[in-house]
């Protein structure tokens, strides 16, 4: 199934977050209630993440593991989970290798940066997500030096979580700002 590289990137981030929680559970046979709680949250989350990138068999496995967690069937979980963790690592690894191919984009000019970042800042102040996305898409269509490129990439991440104020800070930051 062909998946949009942006969605693949987001799925990889979601999978890596789940792996941080799920992987350490493999080395423990005495799970607390909190371990089961976290396990259920992240296997449940993986069900829709994997389905969204067309991996229905892996999504079904996530669902099966989630149900085992609800029943606190630790023996079956520990028997089946290594394969699932392995699959998640493979999927995250494959997606990680999928880098976006930069086309021969025209070189960005300071005036373009100034106009679009003003539009973006205004969109953020008015919580207009579509206008913010449009301004970012225009900026992303040009080739920029590393600093600006990083700002665009960071702003994209922040926009997905609607961190409007933080986007303005990123745009206005200069090298050396923390």
């Amino acid at each position, binding site marked *: 199934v062909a998946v949009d590289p942006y969605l693949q990137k987001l799925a990889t981030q979601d999978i890596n977050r789940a792996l941080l929680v799920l992987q350490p559970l493999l080395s423990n046979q005495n799970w607390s209630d909190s371990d089961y709680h976290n396990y259920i949250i992240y296997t449940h*989350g993986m069900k829709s993440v994997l389905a969204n990138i067309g991996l229905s068999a892996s999504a079904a496995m996530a669902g099966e593991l989630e149900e085992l967690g609800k029943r606190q069937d630790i023996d079956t979980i520990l028997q089946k989970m290594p394969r699932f963790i392995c699959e998640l690592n493979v999927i995250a690894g494959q997606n990680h290798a999928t880098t976006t191919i930069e086309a021969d984009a025209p070189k960005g000019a300071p005036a373009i940066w100034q106009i679009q970042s003003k539009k973006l800042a205004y969109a953020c102040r008015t919580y207009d997500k579509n206008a913010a996305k449009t301004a970012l898409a225009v900026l992303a269509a040009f080739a920029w030096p590393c600093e600006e490129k990083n700002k665009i990439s960071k702003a994209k991440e922040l926009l997905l979580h609607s961190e409007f104020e933080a986007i303005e800070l990123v745009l206005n930051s200069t090298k050396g700002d923390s």
Partner: protein
Amino acid sequence: LTETIFVVDDNDINLAVAEDGLEKEYNVVTLPSGKRLFEMLEKLMPSLILLDIVMPEMDGFEVIKRLKSSPKYKSIPVIFLTGTGDEATENLGYALGAADFIHKPFSASILQQRIRLQI
């Protein structure tokens, strides 16, 4: 004026998929947690909230309880986004004031139709 819809889900891909399906018609504000939802509600009032149930820290049921107990927010329709199809979960959701349930993964057209029924 474009109506605003909040989408709350702890998985980024679900936020992106919902946004992709709705952004032509709505201003879609995507939020990764219940905490961020309440922060954003201080700044912007949505016409509807699409809310995931199973999330770390504050789950969807806790979020809807807080929304429905607030005079300011109780009239905002809440549609649950769920990966679980069990009756008990849906009964609890409706009892807490949910307007509808949509099962993940969802199609953009179903999402749009169900939202139109509410706003």
